[in-house]
C-alpha cells in the first residue's frame, strides 16, 4: 500500500464514521416516539425502511404512506429512501446503508430480481428482515413477498377488461415499464397464455417499453398507434404508462376508437376516465399493500412467523393472513375503477 492510498483509506474510514455518527444523530432525533427509544438496548425496537422502485412514483407514495401508518401504529420508526430512477442496481446503495444502520426490517420493491440480491443477503446476515412487495426478487434473497394480487388474477382482469371492450376480436398491444421488471414480465406472460387459450380472435401484436417515464411512454404510445393502424386496444400494466397513454389517446383522433386499460391510480386517470378515453382500469389498494408489508415485517421481527408456508399473522384492520407457497402472502382481488366510483378515491 502506498502512503497516499493509506492516507486516503484513513480519510475514508474517518468520513464513514462521521457520516454514521451523523445518521445516528438524526435517527435519535426523529425517534421521539412515546415508546421510549432509549430503553431495551439491543432489544428490537421496530425500525422499518421502505425502498420503492423510484421516488416520485405516486403509487409508491400511497403504498409507503400506508406502510408508515402501520409502522407508527406498531410503535416503530419508519423511513423511506430510494433511487430517482428505476434502474436495476440503483437500490443497492440504499440497501447497504440501511444494513449498516442495522434496521430491523427492509421493505423493498425490486427493480431487478437478481441485481440487488447480494446486498439484501448481506443485510439479512446482519439480522435485518427483508420483505419484498409489489415486485419480487428471487426467493433466496428475501424472507417474505407481499403479493398485491395474484399475477393470474391481475392478468385475467386486464385481459377480460380489454377483450370485453373491443368485442373479443382484433389487435391489441401492451405498453409495459422496463424490459426487465419482474412483475411486468410475469403478467405479460400470463396475459399471452390467457389470450391464446381463451381469446383466439384477439391478437397481441406488440409489447413496447416506456421505462416508467412520462415522455418515453407517451412517445411509445404514439409510435404504437402509428405502427399498428388497426390496433383496437392497449393494456398498460403500469401507472406511469397508462397515464401517458391516456394523455396521448385523449388528444389523438383514435380517442374512443382504441380502448385503453391496465393498472392506474385514480388521481392520474381521473381526467381520462371523465373525458371518455378510458372506460375502466384496475388496481388493488396500495395503501393496504404497504400496511400489510409493514405488519408482515413486524411479525418477522418479533418472531411470530418465520416466513414458512402455513404461518399466519394478523395485520391490524386488514384481518388475518396466511403465508402461501414460496413465502408469499396474497393481499386479495384487484379492484375496478370507472366513472361511477373514481371520485371516491384520492390517491
Amino acid at each position, binding site marked *: 500500500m502506498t502512503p497516499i492510498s493509506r492516507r486516503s483509506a484513513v480519510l475514508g474510514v474517518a468520513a464513514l464514521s462521521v457520516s454514521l455518527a451523523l445518521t445516528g444523530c438524526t435517527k435519535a432525533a426523529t425517534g421521539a416516539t412515546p415508546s421510549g427509544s432509549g430503553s431495551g438496548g439491543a432489544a428490537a425496537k421496530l425500525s422499518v425502511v421502505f425502498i420503492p422502485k423510484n421516488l416520485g412514483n405516486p403509487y409508491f407514495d400511497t403504498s409507503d404512506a400506508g406502510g408508515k401508518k402501520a409502522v407508527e401504529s406498531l410503535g416503530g420508526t419508519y423511513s423511506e429512501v430510494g433511487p430517482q*430512477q428505476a434502474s436495476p442496481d440503483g437500490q443497492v446503495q440504499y440497501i447497504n446503508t440501511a444494513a449498516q444502520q442495522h434496521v430491523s426490517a427492509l421493505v423493498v420493491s425490486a427493480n431487478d430480481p437478481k441485481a440487488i440480491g447480494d446486498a439484501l443477503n448481506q443485510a439479512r446476515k446482519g439480522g435485518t428482515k427483508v420483505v419484498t412487495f409489489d415486485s419480487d426478487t428471487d426467493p433466496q434473497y428475501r424472507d417474505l413477498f407481499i403479493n398485491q394480487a395474484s399475477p393470474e388474477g391481475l392478468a385475467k382482469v386486464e385481459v377480460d377488461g380489454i377483450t370485453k371492450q373491443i368485442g373479443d376480436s382484433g389487435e391489441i398491444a401492451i405498453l409495459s415499464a422496463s424490459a426487465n421488471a419482474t412483475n411486468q414480465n410475469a403478467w405479460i406472460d400470463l396475459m399471452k397464455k390467457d389470450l391464446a387459450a381463451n381469446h383466439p380472435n384477439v391478437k397481441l401484436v406488440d409489447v413496447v417499453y416506456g421505462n416508467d417515464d412520462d415522455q418515453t411512454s*407517451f412517445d411509445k404510445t404514439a409510435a404504437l398507434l402509428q405502427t399498428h393502424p388497426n390496433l383496437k386496444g392497449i393494456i398498460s400494466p403500469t401507472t406511469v404508462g397508462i397515464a401517458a397513454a391516456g394523455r396521448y389517446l385523449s388528444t389523438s383522433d383514435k380517442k374512443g376508437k382504441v380502448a385503453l386499460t391496465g393498472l392506474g391510480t385514480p388521481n392520474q386517470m381521473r381526467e381520462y376516465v371523465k373525458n371518455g378515453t378510458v372506460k375502466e382500469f384496475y388496481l388493488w389498494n396500495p395503501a393496504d399493500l404497504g400496511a400489510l408489508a409493514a405488519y408482515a415485517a413486524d411479525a418477522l421481527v418479533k418472531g411470530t412467523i418465520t416466513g414458512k408456508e402455513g404461518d399466519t399473522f394478523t395485520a391490524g384492520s386488514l384481518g388475518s393472513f396466511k403465508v402461501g407457497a414460496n413465502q408469499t402472502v396474497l393481499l386479495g382481488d384487484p379492484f375496478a375503477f370507472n366513472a361511477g366510483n373514481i371520485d371516491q378515491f384520492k390517491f
Partner: protein
Amino acid sequence: MTTAPAPSKEPTVTVPDTSTEVQLLVEPSSLAPRRRMAQSLLRSRELSILAVLLLVIAAATIKNPSFLLSSSGWRDLLLTPSMLILLAVGQAAVIITRNVDLSVGSVLGLTAYLTGRLFIDHPGIPVVVVFAAGLLVGAVLGLVNGLLVALGRVPALVITLGTLYIYRGLVLSWAGSSRINASDLPAGFLALGTQQILTIPVLFLIAVVVLSAVGYYLYTARSGREFYAIGSDPDAAVLYGLNVRRRVIGAFLLSGALAGLAGVVFAARYGSVSSDAGTGIELQAVAAAVIGGVAIFGGSGTVWGAAIGAVLLVTINRALPMLGIPDFWQQALVGALILSAIVLDRVLSARQSRRLVEARDQS
C-alpha cells in the same frame, strides 16, 4: 435642315483602369449571386441532412401512409420534435462558441415542474405569464452557467456537468416525490399542447419563430458572426478585440432561456411532470446539433442544421419501429449517424485546408 439629326459624337468607351490589380489568395466567386447561392445550398450540410430526413419520412409513409397523411400523423410529425428543436437551437449557439451546455435537461425539468406549480398555486394565472416565467427562470440558470464559464475560465463541459446535477438537485428537493398530473393543469394550457393553426401545431410554430430569430441573428448580426469567430479560434478572437466573455455569456443565456421555454412546452405536451422530467435530453440536444452539421469544436454550422438534426433524430425514433427495426438497432443507428456526421466533418475540413494550402502554394 430641320430633319438633320444632330451629329452624334462617337462615344469613347472608358475602360476602368485596372493597372493596380490586387492578387487575392482566394478569389471572390465570379459566379452570379443566384447561382452561387444555389451551389452553396447544394453543397451545404443542411441539405444533405434534410435529404436523409425526407428519405426517412418517405420510407415510413410508403410502409404506412398514415405516418404522414393522417391528421394525427401530420400533427405528430411536426409536434414531437418541437421541444428538441428549441433545445438544439440553444445548444448549437453554445457549441458554435466552442462550449457545450449539458445542464439543459435539468433546466427543462425545473421549469416544467415550475409550470405545474404555478398553475396549482395560482389558479387562473394567464398562460402568457407562465411562458414568461419559464423563459426568465431558464435565462437566469443559463446566466449562471455563462458567468461560471466565462469568468471562471473552466471548460464548459465541467461547469455544466456540475450545474446539471445542481439544477436536478433543486428539482428533486422541490418536487420530492410529488408530481404534476394532467388534472392539475387548466384545460386551455393542455389544449396548447395539441392546438393547430392551419394544421400546423402551435408549439411547432413557437419553435420555428425562435429558430428563425436565432438563425437570422447568427447569420446577419455582427455580434452573431462573432460567435463563429470565437468558436473558430478563441485566442485570435481575444487578440482581435472581440468581447469574448460577453458573447459566451450571451450564448449560455440563450441556451438556458430556450431550455426554460422547452420546459413549459414539455408540461403542455405531456401533461404530467415528475422530478425526473427531461433527464438525458441534453445528450439528444448535443446529438441533434452534431448531426445537423454543427462542428463540436465550434466555429461552423447553423441553427437550421441543428433544428433539422433534431427533427431527424425524433423522426427516426418514430419511424424505425414502424419499419420493423428492433429497439437496440434504433439506438445503434443514431450512434452511427453521429459518427458519420463527425467523420464527414473531418473529411470536409481536411479537404478545405488542403485546398487553402494548394492555393497558397500556387500563388
